[in-house]
């Protein structure tokens, strides 16, 4: 039958293609539906950090889940390099989070200690002062009074990752249909049928990895996935001779030599534009971090819409009312790519749930007595 697969993944971004790749590795026949060239595409706006420190404050399963992805990332890199000849430039030298005041430093220390306590001490990080920071990052500016460093952190090239996943999917026979938007999902016997772009797609299982589109698609398969856009503005400055060996939360130097500086968290709906005041603020923080960047030219600035759940943590859930339908959504598509390919995909393929995944069900948002904030 035309347009028929074992699993249909709705969404061809970092989340969708990572899951599709993992499913193909499991030997399944996979289809992917992707929108057109002008779709919002959180994947194209990603900063590229493979970041662990600071995440999961008050939700230690997320800290563990994130770390589990970071430790599996080298495997993902090797697989992709071997299958596609694309090196996604994973580097995990550890990362820094800068503090610009004593208060910030104390707050950071407390946050990381709390996570460490939740994990019974299994959480490597150190708090360092300016002198030590300067020793490790010579270009750092005098206004950075200190930082937290963790060996768990790193970065990769998000666009190369997306391309590598697409290419690897192609080589493994994943059928990618571009320029279509999924409108309806219905149960069809023991499987599903999806209406998209005037075509019908049949699959035994269906995975909703459509980013912001999941909000309206998920209820069709009985899942509550209340994701909403959260804008982050990002700056890219011109190529500079290599000066930064480590990623930091707001500034990293890419493998191309360009300097990426972020970011913001704005509640502005579906607006992916940039604003002069936020751009200037981000530039200011970048120059405070590394004063030598003052002379470097901004080449491009964009807004990217994070796919944010009310508490900021992923939603991974198999539908109880429509077994075989899954929602997979997060806003850290690069960091969690390994988990998606190597843990979430096998869960969908073989029904073997990875440890901790039950904490990410969308049901958690149905508790009316809780107020959610995504302060990360």
């Amino acid at each position: 039958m035309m347009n028929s697969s074992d699993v249909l993944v709705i969404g061809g971004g970092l989340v969708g293609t990572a899951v599709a790749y993992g499913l193909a590795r499991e030997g399944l026949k996979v289809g992917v539906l992707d929108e057109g060239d002008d779709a919002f595409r959180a994947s194209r706006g990603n900063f590229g950090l493979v970041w662990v420190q600071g995440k999961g404050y008050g939700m230690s399963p997320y800290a563990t889940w994130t770390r589990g992805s970071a430790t599996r990332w080298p495997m993902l890199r090797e697989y992709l390099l071997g299958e596609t000849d694309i090196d996604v430039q994973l580097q995990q030298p550890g990362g820094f989070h800068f503090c610009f005041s004593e208060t910030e430093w104390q707050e950071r220390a407390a946050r990381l200690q709390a996570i460490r306590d939740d994990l019974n001490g299994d959480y490597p990080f150190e708090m360092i002062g300016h002198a030590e920071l300067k020793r490790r990052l010579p270009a750092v500016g005098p206004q950075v009074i200190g930082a937290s460093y963790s060996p768990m952190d790193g970065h990769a090239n998000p666009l190369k990752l997306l391309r590598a996943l697409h290419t690897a999917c192609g080589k493994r026979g994943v059928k990618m249909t571009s320029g279509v938007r999924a409108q309806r999902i219905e149960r069809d016997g023991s499987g599903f049928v999806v209406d998209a772009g005037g075509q019908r797609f049949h699959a035994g299982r269906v995975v909703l990895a459509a980013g912001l589109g999941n909000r309206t698609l998920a209820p069709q398969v009985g899942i509550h996935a209340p994701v909403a856009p959260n804008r982050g503005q990002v700056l890219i400055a011109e190529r500079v001779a290599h000066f930064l060996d480590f990623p930091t939360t707001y500034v990293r130097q890419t493998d191309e030599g360009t300097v990426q500086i972020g970011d913001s968290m704005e509640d502005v709906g579906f607006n992916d534009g940039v604003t002069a005041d936020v751009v200037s603020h981000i530039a200011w923080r970048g120059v405070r971090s590394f004063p030598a960047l003052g002379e470097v030219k901004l080449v491009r600035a964009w807004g990217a819409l994070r796919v944010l759940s009310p508490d900021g943590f992923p939603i991974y859930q198999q539908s109880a009312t429509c077994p075989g339908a899954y929602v997979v959504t997060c806003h850290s598509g690069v960091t969690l790519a390994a988990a998606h390919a190597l843990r979430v995909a096998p869960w969908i393929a073989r029904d073997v749930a990875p440890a901790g995944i039950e904490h990410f069900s969308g049901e958690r948002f149905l508790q009316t007595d809780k107020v959610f904030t995504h302060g990360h």
Partner: protein
Amino acid sequence: MSANQVELVIVGAGPAGMAAATLAAQRGLSVTVLDEQAAPGGQIYRAITQTNARRLNILGPDYAAGGELARAFAASGAKHERGASVWQVTAERTVDYVQDGVVKSLQAGSIILCSGAMERPFPIPGWTLPGVLTAGAAQILLKSAEVVPSQPVVLAGCGPLLYLLGWQYLRAGVPIRAIVDTTDSADYRRALAHLGGALKGWRQLAKGLKLMRALKRAGVPFHQGATNLALEGTDALAAIRFTVNGSAQRIPTEVVLLHQGVVPNTQISWSLRAQHRWDDAQLCWVPITDTWGELDVPGIYVAGDSRGIGGAQAAAEQGRLAALEIVHRAGRIDRAARDSLAAPFTRALRETLHIRPFLDALYRPKDANRIPADEVTVCRCEEVTAGQLRGIVKLGCLGPNQAKSFGRCGMGPCQGRLCGLTVTEVIADARGVPPAEVGYYRVRPPIKPVTLGELAVAHDAALKRAAAQRDETAAEAQNSSAR
């Protein structure tokens, strides 16, 4: 950033910008013109206010006509900010720019974008070699510094500007080695369908014919109907190759001046997410505007070549028409006055554009020179070839933005200005769909580079202002509670 209020902000001091500013200022509007150059004139009237008798003689009467526009502009009372590089225009009509290393901002009642045109890319093998420049570049060298090639030079491509340059070189005593002209009999046949319009614009037609006659009379070698153009060299240009009448030719030369028409500079209009349409006669994107030039973004107009290629005369008339509508909307003149004042401009505009379809048909750039072979560089900044781009399309990329993500095409400093049209057409050709369906790059600020330090200083100034405001408010509160 402190925002200054201005009734009309104009981006670009070429013919459209100067004419618009002059009219609006004369009608009492507060007008600021932002231009990146040190002197007005745009590209077509480059250095018109600093020129001399010799240059005027070489460049010809059409260039000299710009002097009158510039004089009226200088006398109009419009504010002219020189060396002002616009890096963002918002739909809310904020205009952010950098001048002398300082980030500044204006809040406009209305905006007219007069960014003019730029040379159409000419992606043939070797086009990135040192020694390869555009005909427009050569004109700028001549206009602004009287700099010319020192060896007999080769001109290649097609279009009025190419022949105009040749004519100007003759007058300057610069020898022309050859004109490698891609225009062929099919072009003449196609243009015949528009002869009516050409005859209506007979003055311009006559000018063009006179130009060609002068070149032929001077014995400039023409290689007509040239195909398979390629530029040879390793670190610099060494020769141009081409085919005429089935026979392959090669001219050793270290300078080649390329030209196959100009296209609208649409960076700002795209960045506003204004609607554009693909013009198949001019093979480029043009913004969609109403008769006055207003985009679908309220209060923002486009005038001149960036609205669609029409030349300097048309640019000035469009500038005046946009300004008239803005003056009317500002309540300075009523509708009847606007329409009666507009009538001669509209007429002049129509007349000057009669010849356009003929020229567009006659000098339509060849497919091979727009949609290149695999090995040709498409994105000069990031060195991406047409073949690499086609490979990305095979991966499922439907348009320029996905292609950019996967291939870095369009991510360099020029932000797609020199590759955008080529990328749209290569993808359209590879997918077998019209360019209109493929779309264009998502253009983002900064439109022109601005340094992180310049932005940081602006933020610092904003923080200081906010702190001062807080202090002032606190002091006031204290004073009032003390009473």
